[in-house]
């Protein structure tokens, strides 16, 4: 099962782009909180509209020209009971003039719209940080629901922080009193009041949000929210806020020129799959079954029917992948999207796509496992399932996206590999990048090079398992093509005729051919680039997937402190890049941070026979920069 390691020869394939280059504000390391960046966390009940507040704050920051990163963190229940700790919804956003890659470990500002939100989030706030609370909600009943014995606003629990107590509830109701809303509906505007205040803190106007409210809502809903927003902003401007409340001055970031938009990984991954299909000249067929956190891709693609995207909500994950296989057999690009438990169900069918050598992209938006696990939390624990989780010797390429923006390019790469080698490809994302928003510089049109698909139409000399000598791909034939009628299936077939064959030597030959596709892919990979740092040194940090931001910041800081640390971020996880072993040989230590119990480390050890230091965390949360920094510090003292 050793991954093929041929000599590096081929040129850089399409859609390979250094990760750092893709980022806005690349290169400038963020160091000083409240100068380079401010981290703010909105938290409240899941009915408080926290996610909306967060996305609007992100959009405003984008328009202002900051770099930023976000981390939405919401409860597993649709609407958990009001006021409970498990009903708390939070949205973290890190706004900077420097390169921002993570939502930040410890907020500089926490806005807590009820006691439960304070209870859940307080521990994260940095010492000396600002805590804004809606004291109108700190009633006995709500304190009890949150599990507080006393009132933390009174008992000194907030001693290590600056506290701004406002009766936001009352202030909001006052702001909207003219609209004749009941108490319940009136309080729904709390989030806009809060947003107004926070915008004021950052010295921003409310125009962008106003415009947005105008576009999305009408009548009383629009007007009451507008009123609350403006009132919150005005409150900051006109009231004498205690000296504890500094305003933040985060100038626009120096970002690479280009057109930007705010994206989540769910969007970019969906668009990338479609873009890949378009570049290949194929219709896109998505077979999917809803599952958190993959459903948003189904939703995004379902809205793209007029762009030629067919989405099929199947009865289950098995039907979803089988329909995608049927679509690929019919000459479309078949795609299926799911998360861990759903991908597990697809295991057998992936084998069919391998055996029949059809292109297929399987997207796994990873979440906390095992089993149902933590559906709304992020994790990277499906890597070994992706690489090894099938009966028989049944390997497929595995690719992982590092950032929301990177999802777009990875999706195109997955499509390209699937078609070029007639193979299923596993594309890994996770709950964090699927939901997190970041500003994304749109790719240049010139970088989108078509790779048109050639279907076989010539009957002369045809057989369905004839192979291309380089890619080992078999011909792709659309049923309906005259003169090419043939039969395929999951039973072993003859290398020469494609008919069923039970011959021992033939099975070996076919197994070798299937595994040979991996060798061919490895051979074509572009030489590895180092994301940050030299190609040799003290410590190489090898990462994959959504830990990119945390690693990049930690390595950037270590380098700023003069340490010989480099960051290598793998997009291609299987086959591993053939030059990885040589590259890592130039480092004294190899650190592999992962949100699992050490799965990439396992692959590196078996493939490279190189000892690596596995640094893992399985908590349903992204890495904190500090966690990685600590490992680096211990190795470079």
């Amino acid at each position, binding site marked *: 099962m050793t991954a093929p390691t041929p000599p590096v020869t081929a040129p850089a394939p399409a859609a390979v782009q250094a990760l750092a280059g893709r980022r806005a504000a690349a290169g400038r390391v963020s160091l000083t909180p409240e100068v380079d960046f401010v981290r703010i966390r909105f938290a409240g009940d899941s009915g408080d509209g926290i996610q909306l507040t967060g996305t609007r704050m992100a*959009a405003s920051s*984008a328009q202002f*020209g900051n770099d930023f990163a976000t981390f939405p963190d919401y409860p597993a229940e649709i609407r958990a009971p009001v006021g409970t700790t498990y009903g708390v919804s939070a949205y973290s956003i890190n706004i900077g003039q420097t390169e921002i890659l993570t939502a930040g470990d410890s907020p500089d500002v926490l806005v807590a719209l009820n006691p439960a939100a304070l209870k859940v989030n307080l521990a994260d706030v940095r010492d000396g940080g600002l805590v804004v609370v809606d004291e109108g909600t700190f009633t006995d009943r709500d304190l009890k629901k949150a599990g507080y014995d006393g009132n933390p606003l009174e008992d000194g629990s907030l001693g290590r922080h600056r506290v701004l107590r406002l009766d936001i509830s009352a202030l909001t109701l006052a702001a909207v009193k003219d609209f004749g809303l009941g108490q319940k509906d009136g309080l729904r505007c709390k989030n806009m009041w809060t947003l107004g205040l926070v915008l004021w803190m950052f010295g921003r106007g409310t125009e962008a949000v106003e415009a947005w409210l105008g576009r999305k809502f009408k009548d009383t809903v629009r007007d009451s929210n507008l009123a609350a927003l403006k009132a919150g902003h005005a409150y900051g401007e006109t009231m004498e806020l205690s000296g504890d409340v500094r305003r933040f001055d985060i100038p626009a970031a120096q*970002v*690479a*020129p280009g*057109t*930007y*938009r*705010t994206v989540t990984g769910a969007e970019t991954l969906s*668009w990338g799959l*479609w*873009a890949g299909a*378009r570049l290949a000249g194929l*219709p896109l*067929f998505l*077979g999917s079954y809803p599952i958190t956190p993959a459903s948003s891709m189904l939703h995004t693609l379902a809205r*793209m029917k007029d*762009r*030629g995207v*067919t989405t*099929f909500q*199947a*009865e289950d994950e*098995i*039907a979803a992948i*089988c*329909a*995608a*296989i*049927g*679509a690929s*057999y*019919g000459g*479309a690009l*078949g795609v299926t999207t799911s998360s861990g438990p759903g991908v597990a169900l697809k295991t*057998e069918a992936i084998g*069919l796509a391998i055996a*029949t050598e059809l292109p297929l992209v399987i997207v796994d938006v990873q979440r906390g496992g095992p089993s149902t696990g933590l559906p709304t939390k992020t994790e990277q624990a499906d890597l070994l399932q992706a690489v090894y989780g099938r009966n028989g010797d049944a390997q497929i390429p595995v690719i992982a996206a590092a950032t929301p923006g990177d999802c777009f390019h990875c999706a195109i790469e997955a499509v390209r590999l699937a078609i070029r080698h007639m193979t299923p490809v596993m594309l890994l994302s996770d709950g964090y990048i699927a939901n997190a928003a970041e500003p994304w510089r*749109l*790719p240049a*049109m010139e970088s*989108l*090079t*078509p790779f048109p698909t050639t279907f076989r*139409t010539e*009957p002369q000399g045809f057989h369905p398992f004839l192979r291309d000598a380089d890619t080992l791909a078999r011909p792709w034939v659309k*049923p*309906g*093509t*005259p*003169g090419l*009628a*043939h*039969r*395929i*299936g*999951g*039973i072993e077939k003859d290398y020469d005729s494609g008919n*069923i064959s039970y011959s021992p030597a033939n099975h070996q030959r076919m197994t070798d051919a299937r595994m040979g596709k991996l060798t061919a892919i490895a051979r074509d990979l572009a030489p590895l680039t180092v994301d940050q740092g030299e190609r040799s040194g003290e410590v190489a940090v090898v990462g994959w997937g959504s830990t990119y931001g945390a690693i990049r910041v930690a390595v950037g800081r270590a380098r700023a402190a003069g340490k010989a640390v480099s960051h290598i971020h793998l997009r291609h996880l299987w086959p591993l890049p053939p030059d990885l072993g040589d590259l890592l040989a130039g480092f004294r230590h190899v650190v592999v941070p992962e949100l699992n119990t050490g799965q990439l480390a396992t692959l590196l050890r078996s493939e490279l026979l190189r000892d690596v230091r596995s640094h893992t965390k399985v908590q349903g949360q992204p890495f904190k920069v500090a966690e990685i920094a600590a490992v680096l510090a211990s190795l470079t003292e």
Partner: protein
Amino acid sequence: MGIQSDTPRLLTDKDFASDQDVRWCPGCGDYAILKAVQRTLPQIGATPDTTVFVSGIGCSSRFPYYMATYGFHTIHGRAPAVATGLKITNPDLDVWVVTGDGDGLSIGGNHMLHALRRNIDLNILLFNNEIYGLTKGQYSPTSPCGTRSPSSPGGSVDAPLMPCVFALGAGARFVARGGDTLLKQLPEVLKRAHAHKGASFVEILQNCVIYNPGAFDAVTDKKTAPDSVLFVEHGKPMLFGRDGRKGLVRSPDGFGLAVATVGENGVTEADVLVHDETNRLLGMALAALRPPLFPMVMGVIHCAPGDSFETACRAPEVPAGGDAAADIMALLHAGDTWTVP
């Protein structure tokens, strides 16, 4: 492109037979079904290049290898799902699904259910031999209670499913029944299934000579058949029996069907119900009948066309010639963007 003959000639069953040796047991009912299909296809204007057979796993599911059409031998139970993706992608193809009572109703029951519910235009042939043939004779979900098999040495204890009743319960809009050796009727049923736009479900009673021989003797045996089989035809009175004098009538007590003899007890031909294939409830009643008390109903039990799924599900075709990169940029720019100079 492709080999095209100038003067189109009439196709025959031979044009639909592949070059592979047929590998079923000698005497297996599958042979007769294969012949019937190969003979019927030319008669309905099908061509090998525009026809696809999709199957699961089982003796019956080997079917595609013996057809000179396109064919996909998938995995156990999943043929309806694979065929769904294919048909949506390529609605001009004639897509046939071949499955068994194990493949289509045990492991594949859910896909069958939903393919029927969605009414996707597939012609589904379920070879019901009331046994798992390929895996050497375990009882299946259609085996009668008490079936002794390697996995039920003391006799099976689960009540069997009635495939056509199940299909109607799933909302199928075309449900028919045929038999492997009913060489005259089976092709007619196949033609009707093909003509029906939407999911067509055909149960074909099939004899497994090795593991369940003679399961349908009462129905296929020339001696007993007349009294135990009713061939229904839309608009025709439902008469059967050696002398054609037995008929289905409304049950005198309660709600349902009964067998009566014309000329006896004052029953006249007018009392005999006329088959209405558009009546789903009647279909359910007919599908559930079984000898010895009732006849086995063969032919088109229910046919009530409705919108078929693939057309509505499928995205409009994007002109192939378009500029892909420009289209992609258009998508990326559709939304809130800002430009840094």
